[in-house]
């Protein structure tokens, strides 16, 4: 056990810090629109070998030798400098790893580079009205007619579909095959005639997720990843990436710091809430969870870095529920500190969703509401508990009706 960086990694960190002096941009570049500035800097990060380290150069990455500690240094330093690095969008975060693993050469060349730059936005078409936790029961149909897939049916809870140019998703292509074996992973241009996006209003007031309807929508037969009927296996790989996106220890440390700041500002029984023994203990109890998360992540990171991930499988499969629950403890405590201010918040249509670090009273109210999201998105907590029980502790699978 040694929490210091080696000389090589210390030198690497210095190198990254020097590079980051180039952000924010200066001179003429500073006058460009924000998005363009980010793209310029991200490109420099790729050229310097810091951004998209695991993606081959030919597809727009920087193709660095695998070094988890360097990855971690880049994430920490870029984060501290608030500098643009790897996009964590559905495209760059979820589709790209899937295509790199399962895609054809042509698909990689065509889709990976614009997903990395964010020029092409992707949405994920998985859930359906009748298929949530039991995703493999999905019914949205794609039928091969000549050299086209003809798609009919509906997807739901499709985040950012209204801004996406492309969808990757799961469709039933082999209606006669067994449940898991009749699904294919397809790539669909959102401007295909017969694709209609209808926004859904969330409880926070905004419109982030959508319903997507398909009526005889026709896409080329080649827009399939891996073979017919293999979509389920392909999607399992993607879900792993999604769960990794959701457990972000930085987010939790920030939220705890924000909570402590809030307790200093707010008043309870005529004095600063932070001096109230009950509130102090409650925050200290929450800190126990936040520290557990931080250190458990360090342990998993070390296991991965040593190539011994098998030794940290249990804590790894626990990350999502653990971080969801810990974030909710923070938000519940913050909400109690707000008192009557807890009832005032805008429910505007442009409320964007979770991840907004707004420490005004109404910002906390929205954070309190949005903290429900991670308990559902990317695998509901109740289903995660099944997975922990079954794969983590060897308990029997749920009884299911015969197929």
């Amino acid at each position, binding site marked *: 056990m040694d929490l210091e960086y080696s000389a090589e990694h210390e030198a690497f960190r210095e190198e990254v810090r020097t590079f980051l002096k180039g952000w924010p941009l200066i001179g003429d570049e500073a006058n460009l629109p924000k998005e363009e500035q980010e793209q310029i800097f991200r490109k420099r990060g790729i050229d310097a070998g810091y951004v998209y380290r695991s993606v081959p150069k030919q597809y727009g990455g920087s193709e660095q030798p695998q070094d988890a500690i360097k990855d971690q240094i880049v994430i920490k330093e870029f984060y501290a400098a608030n500098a643009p690095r790897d996009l964590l969008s559905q495209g760059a975060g979820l589709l790209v790893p899937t295509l790199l693993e399962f895609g054809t050469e042509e698909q990689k060349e065509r889709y990976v580079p614009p997903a990395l730059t964010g020029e092409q936005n992707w949405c994920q078409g998985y859930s359906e009205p009748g298929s949530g936790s039991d995703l493999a029961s999905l019914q949205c149909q794609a039928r091969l007619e000549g050299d086209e897939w003809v798609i009919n049916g509906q997807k739901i809870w499709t985040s950012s579909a209204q801004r996406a140019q492309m969808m990757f998703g799961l469709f039933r292509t082999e209606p006669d095959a067994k449940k898991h074996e009749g699904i294919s992973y397809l790539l669909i241009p959102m401007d295909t005639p017969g694709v209609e996006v209808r926004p859904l209003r969330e409880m926070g007031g905004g419109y982030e997720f959508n319903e997507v309807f398909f009526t005889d929508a026709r896409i080329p037969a080649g827009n399939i990843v891996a073979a017919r009927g293999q979509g389920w296996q392909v999607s399992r790989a993607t879900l792993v990436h999604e769960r990794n996106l959701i457990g972000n220890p930085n987010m939790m440390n920030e939220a705890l710091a924000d909570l402590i700041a809030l307790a200093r500002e707010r008043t309870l029984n005529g004095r600063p809430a932070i001096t109230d023994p009950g509130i102090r203990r409650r925050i200290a109890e929450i800190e126990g969870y936040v520290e557990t998360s931080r250190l458990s992540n360090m342990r998993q990171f070390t296991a991965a870095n*040593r190539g011994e991930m098998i030794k940290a499988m249990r804590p790894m499969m626990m990350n999502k529920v653990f971080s969801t629950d810990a974030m909710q403890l923070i938000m519940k405590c913050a909400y109690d500190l707000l008192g009557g201010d807890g009832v005032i918040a805008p429910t505007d249509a442009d409320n964007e969703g979770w991840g907004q670090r707004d420490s005004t009273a109404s910002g906390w109210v929205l954070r309190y509401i949005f903290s429900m999201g991670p308990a559902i998105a990317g695998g509901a907590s109740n289903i995660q508990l099944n997975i922990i029980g079954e794969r983590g502790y060897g308990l*029997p699978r749920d009884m299911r009706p015969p197929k």
Partner: protein
Amino acid sequence: MDFGLSEEQEMLQETVRGFAQNECPTTRLRELFDEGNGHDPALWQALAEMGVAGLTVPEEQGGAGMEFLDLALVAEVLGEFALPSPFIGHSLAIQGILLAGSEAQCASLLPALASGELIASIALQESDVVWAPSDWTAKFEGDRLSGTKTYVSHAKVADRLLVGVQGGEFVWVDTKAEGVEIEDLGAIDRTQPMSRVTFTGAQAIKLEGGPGTASGLLDAAAALLAADAFGAASKLIDLDVAYSLEREQFGQPIAQFQSIKHTIARLGLDIEPARALYWYAAHALDHLPAEASRAASIAKAHITDRAMNAARESVELHGGYGFTWECEVQMWFKRIMVDRAIYGTPDEHRDRSAALGGY
């Protein structure tokens, strides 16, 4: 940057685990539990021969020269087997000498402890809520010790006691000396007998390190109790899994019911990730002095609190059987009660970690 165990550390745990499996399986644990001495001289002797009695004692003083983290790793395994032994008190007495003893005192006191020839324990707490060094009232004047200490683990089998006195200093006393009276308190955990020890002018020697060393010992106590509770709670989850697979109701193993499966998954969520918490507390005691007190308090509060919850859930999961003396769950339940209650409750350690965390 590496936050994991070394091969030697993994082997240390496996060695002690293998030993405990053979020498203190549940059948033997039950006998020792009913005897209520919390001590089996043969078991202790064998542990001492493995080096467990003097793990952190420097090699030149007859110990294994290992780190505090290694000690915590052994505490986890002994907690896992609820192994009755004076290990925790003995190890903490050694930590006290390492912290507060002069070079000459270390050289004269440590070898007999490292070999296991002498058993030691610590006497710090003075009442239900008086455990912090700043509150100690026991007096040391001339070479005489007076005062009362309570919840002293294994005092009846200990040869020596490390006693905290007014001013946050330590003295070293022979339990057979005149003026030392040991009264058994009837502890709930029969693997950890507790005594009240009254000193009336008992001859003792003062460790020369002076004040300022006491909080380090409390940090060590908090980290070791956290490791013990972690091991105990992990064992309870294993028992829950085994029982839920074996016990049938409505024609199926109860593990098939989501209420049971989710209960076990939630206990896992509470306990398994917290392993890193006690590792870090122990590592901080070895290498990150500025972090050590806060890390120890967080680990003690969080792990013993969650472990106690796991113990209560485990009793419930075992149904009527879970409430019996016969059911093995009760032994770990009580072990965790001790880990949670002594040397600062979760509330007290949360107050401490909040203050140390700057809020």
